[in-house]
């Protein structure tokens, strides 16, 4: 398994999610604070306007219009920079006192711009307009200080919400890469187990976190698998003993009866036949056990350098007469005198090639040419190819051909256990070789690709080539 990229790691994703949500939360908070502050400051300004208005109306009540005008002009002078605007309008709506020259007509509270008062300012106003005995009093306070405060507040919060993102990513990255490294170690340890080191377990850091809990669970499962594999290895021997003993007895009895009855007795032939059937049960049984043993063998095969050319030459010598009896041709195609060495178990590899050659001979009709080729790939890996120009295998059947007991419809009539190709696949897998079936148009081509170097620890290269 390839270790995941840092940005695919779970802690990193959590960090990003966390960053996004905190940033959103801060933004939302900013919005609420801004809104509340805005409301609060407006309410406060309106309160101040109302207070100011009361002061002015009291002055009017005490000293009449002149008192009001004096009071108002004093106040307006105090705010010469038009931070506050004061005006009194005559019943004909003419400004008779104050620090502005024009005003819109309105009643009650209203938001106004400086332009509406004929002023060249930037700040905005909240204005109050009320009538006192036909005179209209207008007071407006600028909101600048509140606006700037709320703007500063919201900018600060928005920047904070932005700043959270890289920070959270950085922290997520650090935690993520630490966790990713830990998970990589775990994966490597599980891989070691899968490759046959049944003693391999995941390190427990002792931090009592969820990963540790998972590691402990995985280790328990690995313990269980190890026990099962050990049990499986001994089960073969157990079955062999428990089942083969009665089969042996049956075989011995049948054989003895046949001998005692003498060759002339018609029963003898039947008894010998029955004895032979017993033998084939045992043979099939041995094949299944052998296949299971190779498929489930956790140990690396004894890695010795094996020359494919030597094996194939010998097998071609063995099978050429058999092919030629069927009027088939069987040839080895390879550069002369050049060894093609792979690492593995010579006996198993021999059996694999035997099965491939026999398969080609048995499942093709007379007159077919069978070619065994050994090729070296540019990356120095070795490829074994067995190709025939027979009827081939239907594409739908090709996937199933390695299944145990699977037999293509038309080969039902050919004798065989249905385990030959399953064994080929098991042996190829055991050597980390890739096996594929393709259309030779016409015919079948079986390709076995050995890995470039010894898949597991290879013996020293000074080994004798066998």
């Amino acid at each position: 398994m390839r270790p995941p990229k840092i940005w695919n790691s779970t802690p990193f994703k959590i960090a990003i999610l966390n960053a996004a949500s905190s940033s959103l939360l801060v933004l939302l908070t900013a919005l609420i604070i801004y809104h509340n502050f805005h409301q609060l400051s407006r309410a406060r300004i309106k309160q101040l306007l109302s207070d100011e208005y009361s002061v002015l109306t009291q002055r009017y009540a005490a000293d009449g219009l002149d008192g009001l005008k004096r009071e108002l002009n004093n106040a307006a002078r105090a705010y010469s920079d038009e931070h506050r605007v004061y005006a009194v309008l005559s019943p004909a709506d003419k400004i008779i006192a104050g620090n502005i020259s024009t005003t819109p007509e309105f009643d009650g509270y209203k938001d106004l711009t400086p332009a509406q008062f004929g002023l060249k300012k930037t700040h905005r106003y909240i204005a109050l307009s009320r009538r006192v005995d036909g005179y209209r009093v207008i007071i407006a306070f600028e909101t600048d200080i509140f606006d700037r405060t709320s703007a500063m507040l919201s900018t600060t919060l928005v920047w904070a919400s932005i700043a959270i993102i890289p920070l959270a990513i950085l922290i997520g990255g650090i935690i993520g890469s630490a966790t990713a490294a830990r998970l990589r170690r775990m994966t490597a340890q599980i891989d070691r187990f899968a490759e046959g080191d049944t003693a391999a377990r995941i390190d427990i850091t002792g931090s009592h976190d969820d990963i540790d809990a998972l590691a402990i669970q995985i280790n328990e499962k690995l313990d269980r698998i190890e026990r099962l594999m050990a049990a499986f290895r001994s089960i073969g021997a157990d079955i062999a003993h428990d089942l083969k003993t009665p089969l042996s007895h049956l075989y011995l009895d049948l054989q003895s009866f046949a001998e005692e009855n003498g060759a002339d007795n018609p029963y003898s032939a039947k008894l010998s036949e029955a004895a032979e059937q017993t033998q084939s049960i045992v043979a099939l049984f041995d094949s299944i056990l052998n296949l299971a043993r190779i498929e489930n063998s956790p140990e690396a095969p004894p890695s010795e350098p094996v020359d494919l050319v030597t094996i194939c030459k010998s097998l071609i010598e063995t099978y050429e007469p058999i092919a030629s009896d069927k009027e088939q041709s069987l040839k080895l195609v390879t550069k002369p005198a050049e060894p093609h060495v792979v690492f593995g178990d010579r006996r198993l590899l021999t059996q694999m090639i035997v099965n491939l050659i026999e398969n080609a001979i048995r499942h093709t009709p007379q007159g077919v040419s069978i070619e065994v080729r050994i090729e070296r790939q540019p990356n120095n890996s070795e490829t074994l190819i067995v190709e025939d120009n027979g009827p081939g295998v239907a594409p739908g059947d090709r996937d199933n051909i390695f299944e145990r007991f699977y037999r293509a419809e038309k080969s039902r009539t050919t004798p065989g256990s249905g385990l030959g190709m399953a064994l080929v696949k098991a042996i190829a897998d055991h050597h980390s070789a890739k096996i594929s079936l393709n259309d030779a148009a016409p015919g079948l081509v079986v390709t076995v690709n050995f890995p470039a170097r010894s898949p597991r620890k290879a013996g020293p290269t000074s080994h004798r080539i066998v």
Partner: protein
Amino acid sequence: MKILIVEDDEKTAAYVKRGMEEIGAVCDVINDGRNAVAAALRGDYDIAIVDRMLPGLDGISAVKAVRASGEKTPVLFLSALNAVDDRVEGLQAGADDYLAKPFAFSELKARIDALLRRPPTRPQPTTLKVGDLELDLLMRRALRAGKTINLQNKEFLLLEVLMRNAGRIMTKTMLLEKVWDFNFDPQTSVVETHISRLRAKIDKDFGRQILHTVRGVGYKIDASS
């Protein structure tokens, strides 16, 4: 001829014993590993037939113990464990042959025959002779009645194995093991095909048959019969 049978399964032990006594051997049956080692170390047996799974001490350990003491009595393993690895393990422990259960008595007899008459370790002859058939191992050349016969590699090997065991039956499995190094049953008639090719070359034009088929058992080279 004295044979030590180490087998805890009574039925198999009785069968082997009866068969061996029929061909004139004297048999002792022992059913556990420890006693078997003690018996073998007395050194007065011509051959030991040993089961692998035994009470007391398993067959492999027993044979190793016997070999470690320098005792050279030929040992044939008779076992239900028939994977290639089991066989290799058995032979590496010091056994001389390995036969899987269930076995045909003819197969066991042929193998015991071959073990008993296995020539002691004296220099190998470079020429094998049976009647008027001659095999020159150095020149890799076969002659019958003075006429050169061209043999393919496997035919030569097959003939060599048969001639080294002249007069004795070689079963199909024995030939597969010795000539082809196959410890499995091929799905095609490997032995039959090569025997028939060999026969066509060494027998067909020479009147007198020298390569015989023993029906249901195997093959032998014999000039006298």
